[in-house]
């Protein structure tokens, strides 16, 4: 969102280290099994925890009897809703944002009602996992089972079972009199859509749908918490943000933030799903009661039943255009599921719907819908892929109707620098047009297709984010550079930080080490999410590095006995510009060796809150082949083109593009949450929740379009999320061309393809 070039923009200049592809600093530990991930950490004298989860989709908890469980030898603590602060306390603590923390707290452990299959009801800590599980079976919960609702349209109906009698739809012209499962309607509009659609030379309309999908990180949620007698709490866990875990645990338990110290362990994938808390508050309360450290780990079944997913959606789109292909009108209305508690994906769906095009008349309406599923969580570009699927599918249909090439249609309408974004600000240095041109000119786009094959394209964007980050940089006694930051490394960010620091100092990459600190050892940093880390934390690293360079120059001036102004920093050395030492250099190592005699240790910290991030754009080309007998779809070739700003470590930028594309392919073809008639998740495992495997895929070709963000010292835009936006429509368009039938419902499973190819059975 944002930002024409500014006079104070950093100059990128000639880069020596940024843009190279060195081995990541944490790589060795990760290929040898030494890296310590969430489930790998052990504390001395640690107990094993286990959680009792609801077997019902919707029920009132009449009573919970834990006496038999507590009496079992080896059981050290049993906790229920009684052990958590009352809701009023939480409201007082966190002010008007209490809504979300209140929901989160209820999601961590059920209070009056359970809202989904898998909702936590009680927890046990015991001397072994076997004892803990035995104790769970002794807890007696008296449930009053209530009618449940799963599907979006079912939950939307006025006669649906209502989850919360406190939810009244916000955003309507008049406040409704009855509570419902619809917490929010949001609308953004411009011009007059009805007139524009009436005047359009060509229009298309369509109804689209998809089910919730899971982030599918391979590492289970896991943590160890240790409550100490002085009231201090240590938590070891993997998450996308240790500070986020600290803040949410503090709010849910009503304990001071400063008493909690969160140690970030290596994180085994998150994709947005580890930007919240599930286990940490429970482990803390169990530890407080037991007086010993407690470990909690989620099973894969429980991950599917009770964490994630991303919203399912039903969507309607109408587009209108002139005969020459200029878009004149867009009407988009969507309903997103949020699970049992309100989500925020509707906001993001609105802002991600049509902002990649210049359209004078539009109405975009989004509804959030509650139902008896786990509280939804962020998933890579949250809220964007769903609405993009409908809009981009409609664009492909419009191209067909106009007899235009689908990329040319997009080029004609693509948003350009200087034009207004959906948030009202003018766009800065964005490169959608260049991406579309690169896709059009790519050999893939003109490769001939065979029988039963089709090619689809789609484009999309993601706003990216900046926000608060802290980094510190110190010079060791031998001149090594030590960078400390607070953002978990989920896909190579240590390498990016080291590259940016090395570039700023003018030293080799190998001279820099990067450490991710716990929440008591560095200032606040937002989550590793929102495609913000390399941008915002990178800015903090560069600012701290520049401050250290300034100190180094100052120390060199002292050693040479010249004015600071006479010292220049170049290629990792100070150069003397005046006096009898003119032309002499002092290396980092030599300045470091004299640090104690020139003013003491050399270090600096920088805290930043940059909001001059820029969005990222992506264009994907997909070739697919359908098997007419089985309905199976095979992806033959896949190319991603992306506006990446500047690629700091190109391998890891390509990795984001490839990984996001493949998650999108899975979403399009295989993945879905399937519930049975009782509201229980029917496919809570990797066998039945079918994520792409190596044999499903071709190589994923990548084209990086580098148009730097002038507001970042090295041009970073943020690359992690937009790759999952276009695949749904690109894959669906390829299958549609291969079958001759437009695929509007995801996932495009073999039975669906078979059904359209053989309508008579």
């Amino acid at each position, binding site marked *: 969102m944002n930002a024409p070039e500014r006079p104070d923009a950093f100059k990128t200049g000639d880069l020596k280290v940024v843009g190279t592809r060195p081995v990541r600093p944490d790589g060795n530990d990760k290929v040898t099994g030494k890296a310590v991930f969430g489930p790998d950490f052990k504390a001395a004298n640690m107990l094993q925890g286990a959680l009792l989860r609801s077997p019902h989709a919707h029920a009132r908890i009449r009573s919970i009897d834990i006496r038999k469980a507590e009496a079992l030898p080896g059981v050290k603590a049993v906790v229920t809703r009684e052990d958590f602060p009352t809701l009023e306390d939480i409201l007082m603590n966190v002010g008007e944002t209490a809504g979300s923390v209140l929901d989160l707290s209820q999601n961590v452990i059920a209070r009056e009602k359970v809202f989904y299959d898998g909702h936590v009801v009680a927890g046990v800590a015991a001397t072994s996992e076997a004892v803990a599980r035995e104790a769970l079976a002794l807890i007696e919960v008296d449930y009053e089972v209530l009618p449940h609702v799963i599907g979006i349209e079912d939950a939307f109906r006025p006669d649906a079972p209502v989850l919360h009698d406190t939810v009244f739809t*916000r955003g309507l012209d008049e406040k409704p009199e009855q509570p419902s499962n619809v917490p929010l309607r949001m609308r953004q509009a411009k011009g007059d859509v009805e007139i524009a659609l009436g005047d359009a030379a060509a229009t298309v309309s369509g109804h689209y749908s998809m089910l919730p999908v899971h982030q599918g990180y391979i590492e289970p949620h896991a943590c160890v918490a240790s409550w100490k007698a002085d009231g201090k709490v240590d938590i070891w866990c993997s998450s996308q943000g240790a500070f986020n875990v600290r803040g949410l645990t503090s709010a849910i338990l009503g304990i001071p933030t400063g008493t909690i110290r969160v140690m970030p362990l290596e994180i085994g994938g998150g994709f947005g799903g580890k930007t919240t808390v599930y286990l940490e508050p429970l482990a803390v309360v169990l530890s407080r009661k037991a007086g010993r450290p407690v470990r909690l780990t989620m099973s894969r079944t429980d991950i599917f039943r009770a964490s994630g997913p991303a919203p399912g959606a039903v969507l309607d789109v109408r587009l209108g255009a002139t005969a020459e292909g200029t878009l004149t009108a867009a009407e988009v209305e969507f309903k997103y599921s949020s699970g049992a508690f309100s989500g925020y994906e509707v906001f993001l769906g609105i802002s991600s719907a049509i902002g990649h095009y210049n359209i004078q008349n539009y109405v975009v309406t989004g509804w959030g819908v509650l139902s008896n599923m786990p509280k939804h969580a962020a998933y890579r570009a949250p809220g964007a892929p769903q609405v993009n699927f409908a809009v981009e599918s409609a664009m492909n249909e419009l191209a067909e109707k106009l007899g235009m090439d689908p990329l040319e249609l997009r080029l004609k309408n693509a948003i350009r620098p200087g034009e207004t974004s959906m948030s009202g600000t003018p766009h800065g240095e964005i490169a959608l047009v260049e991406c579309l041109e690169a896709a059009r000119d790519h050999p893939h786009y003109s490769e001939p297709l065979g029988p039963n094959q089709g090619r689809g394209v789609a484009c999309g964007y993601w706003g990216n984010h900046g926000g608060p980050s802290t980094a510190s940089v110190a010079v060791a006694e031998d001149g090594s550079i030590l960078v400390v930051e607070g953002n978990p490394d989920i896909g190579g960010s240590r390498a990016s930080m080291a590259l940016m620091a090395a570039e700023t100092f003018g030293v080799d990459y190998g001279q820099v080490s990067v450490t991710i600190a716990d929440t008591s050892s560095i200032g606040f940093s937002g989550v590793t*999410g929102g495609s913000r880390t390399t941008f915002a934390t990178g800015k903090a690293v560069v600012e701290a590095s520049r401050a250290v360079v300034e100190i180094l120059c100052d120390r060199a001036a002292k050693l040479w006995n010249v004015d600071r102004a006479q010292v220049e920093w170049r290629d990792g050395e100070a150069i003397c510009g005046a006096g009898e030492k003119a032309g002499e250099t002092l290396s980092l190592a030599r300045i470091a060796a004299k640090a104690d005699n020139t003013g003491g240790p050399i270090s600096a910290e920088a805290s930043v809150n940059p*909001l001059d991030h820029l969005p990222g754009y992506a264009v994907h080309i997909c070739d697919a082949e359908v098997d007419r007998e089985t309905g199976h779809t095979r992806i033959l070739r896949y190319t991603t083109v992306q506006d990446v700003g500047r690629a700091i470590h190109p391998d890891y930028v390509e990795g984001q593009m490839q990984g996001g594309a493949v998650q999108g392919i899975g979403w399009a073809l295989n993945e879905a949450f399937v519930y049975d008639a009782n509201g229980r998740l029917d496919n809570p495992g990797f066998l039945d929740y079918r994520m792409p495997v190596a044999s499903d895929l071709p190589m994923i070709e990548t084209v990086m379009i580098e148009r730097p963000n002038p507001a970042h010292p090295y041009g970073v835009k943020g690359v992690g999320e937009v790759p999952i936006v276009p695949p749904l429509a690109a894959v669906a368009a390829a299958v549609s061309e291969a079958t001759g039938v437009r695929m509007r419902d995801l996932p495009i499973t073999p039975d669906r393809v078979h059904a359209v190819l053989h309508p008579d059975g």
Partner: protein
Amino acid sequence: MVDVVLMPPFDRELGGGDDRLELEAASLFALVAELDRRSPGFAQAAGLRATLAVDGMVTGDWSQSLSGASEVIVMPRIAGG
């Protein structure tokens, strides 16, 4: 005077359905306070819910002076996964 553009959902919450207001405010803090006067409670949550842009530039520093500024956009604060 500065033009205040209210992006959804703030058009309903703060503008009663209108997406534009004209306000007198010396800084963004003052502007948020003025909006809070019209819609009590806004200021308390604004730091977590709203992002502000002055003449097209998003800013996190609400002490920024509005003298010479012509437009402030109030939009929902969004982040990603």
